[in-house]
């Protein structure tokens, strides 16, 4: 302890502050000092320090990658929201953007696959944020292309080897995916699109499936802290589409061709212009 303090003092006298990190030689000299101290536990603790530093570095890398994956996945979702057609190949412009982003994500995940290897996926669960957002994007893309829900097994195969996609990554991703489908459907209604009733049916199907997770024992897999909120938001999303479709049928009947229901609020959300957070309302 005292060695450390003594080490620092002359450095502060130097007017030009050097890097806060100690140089290797510096810290080696300090370690020798600590080892020479009469404290019998010092060698063991110096060893622990090295191990813990390594652990924290790995953790930091995973957190960073998770953030990057989240950001790229969000961009992917924005691009996908520009699609207007269901069960059809993506428009070329969207496809190339999405493909690029997916490559970026794969690279990000590969850089940390070593940190997450041999069971460490569960040690550094900080990756879950990124994976959840990625699942949201992948589900949405899959839905736009095929009109069906991406299965857990299929999703697992889309994650680079060495990184495990757990149920508690997949399920929250699917929950948030409902929000994207809602935006897509509302836009469709606003533009007078025809397939919205099929989307509504699908949303109801997804809702029915996701409601299973309300069971007390299952909730933990939806979110350790925000399961209730996620479930509530998912329901709201489905109901919004139900209302939009009903509104279109009721008022649309007396309106001239090309009339668009007043849904400015939600539509703005649907365009993604004021969208914040994941699975927002």
């Amino acid at each position, binding site marked *: 302890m005292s060695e450390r303090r003594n080490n620092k003092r002359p450095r502060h006298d130097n007017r030009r502050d050097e890097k806060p990190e100690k140089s290797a030689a510096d810290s080696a000299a300090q370690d020798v000092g600590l080892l020479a101290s009469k404290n019998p536990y010092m060698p063991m603790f110096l060893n622990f320090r090295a191990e*813990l530093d390594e652990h924290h570095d790995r953790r930091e890398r995973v957190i960073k990658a998770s953030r990057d994956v989240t950001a790229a996945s969000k961009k992917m979702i924005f691009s996908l929201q520009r699609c207007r057609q269901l069960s059809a190949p993506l428009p070329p412009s969207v496809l190339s953007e999405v493909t690029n982003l997916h490559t970026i994500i794969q690279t990000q995940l590969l850089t940390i696959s070593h940190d997450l290897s041999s069971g460490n996926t569960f040690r550094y669960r900080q990756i879950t944020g990124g994976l959840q957002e990625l699942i949201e994007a992948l589900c949405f893309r899959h839905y736009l292309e095929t009109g069906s829900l991406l299965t857990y097994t299929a999703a697992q195969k889309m994650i680079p080897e060495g990184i495990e996609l757990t*149920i508690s990554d997949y399920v929250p991703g699917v929950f948030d995916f409902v929000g994207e489908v809602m935006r897509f459907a509302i836009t469709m209604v606003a533009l007078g699109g025809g397939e919205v009733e099929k989307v509504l*049916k699908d949303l109801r199907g997804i809702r029915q*499936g996701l409601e299973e997770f309300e069971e007390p024992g299952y909730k933990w897999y939806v979110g350790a802290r925000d399961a209730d909120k996620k479930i509530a938001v998912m329901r709201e999303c489905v109901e919004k589409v139900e209302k939009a479709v009903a509104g279109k049928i009721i008022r649309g009947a007396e309106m001239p061709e090309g009339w668009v229901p007043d849904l400015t609020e939600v539509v703005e959300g649907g365009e993604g212009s004021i969208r914040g957070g994941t699975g927002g309302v």
Partner: protein
Amino acid sequence: MAEQVYSAIDQDIFATVTEQIEQDLVIRESIKEVLKNLDKQLKQISATLSRVHSVPPSEVPNLITKTQPIFEAAKSDLHELVEKTKPYPYYKYNGMWQREMQNLIFLILFETWLSRSYLPTTVPVNALATIEEVGARLSIPINLKTEDAFHLTIEEYLHAIISLVEELTRLMTNAVTQRDFKRPMLISTFVKDIHSAFQVLNLKNDGLRRRGDGLKYHVKRAEDIGYDLIVRNLVDMGVEEKAEEKAEEKAEEKAEEKAEEKAEDKMQE
């Protein structure tokens, strides 16, 4: 809408997921079972060892002997847990038993500390069982990095050391009540060594950091008691343990000076 509008959402997708959750829940339940047994043993050991606070020093070896069969039982419970969790990644479920594991390690550290500093036969300098010693005692590996198997983590061990410091600081006060003045001096040295050893770690903002920050208060308490004893000449400075002499020289010199000053003051009066 001539074409039928059907939902393409296959409910089996959800069934597959919930099925996996069910399997996971079964595993968790069975882990909890073992942990319940382990916890029972730990409580028993803890109850026995904590009598050290109220019995005379000569009784301590007896207490230690009494805990041995319970430690064995705890060890076999632990190995049942090891077997149960073998098929799964270690870190998948390790959060479930961290508390029990830390407690078990703490009790081993406490027992070792007591036996090394109360038994007349051995006088080693290091009263702290090293992480290797704890691992060997439990027959489980420590700090595995490349292999994915049950092991003792550094964090668990460090948490247990902090618990030991907390327990020993309490023992310091209670030893004084037993007119045992040698123990507080041993503990004082120990607590100071552990505190300065913790200083070399770069802890992040987590539970370990919070608890580690609390160590300084224990050092303060240890110093206060040590000072009080020395000032009142309750510790015989001549017949000190080698261990103390080694690390305490400086602190004691200071205290001695103060004691002398006080004595002189008294004489002058």
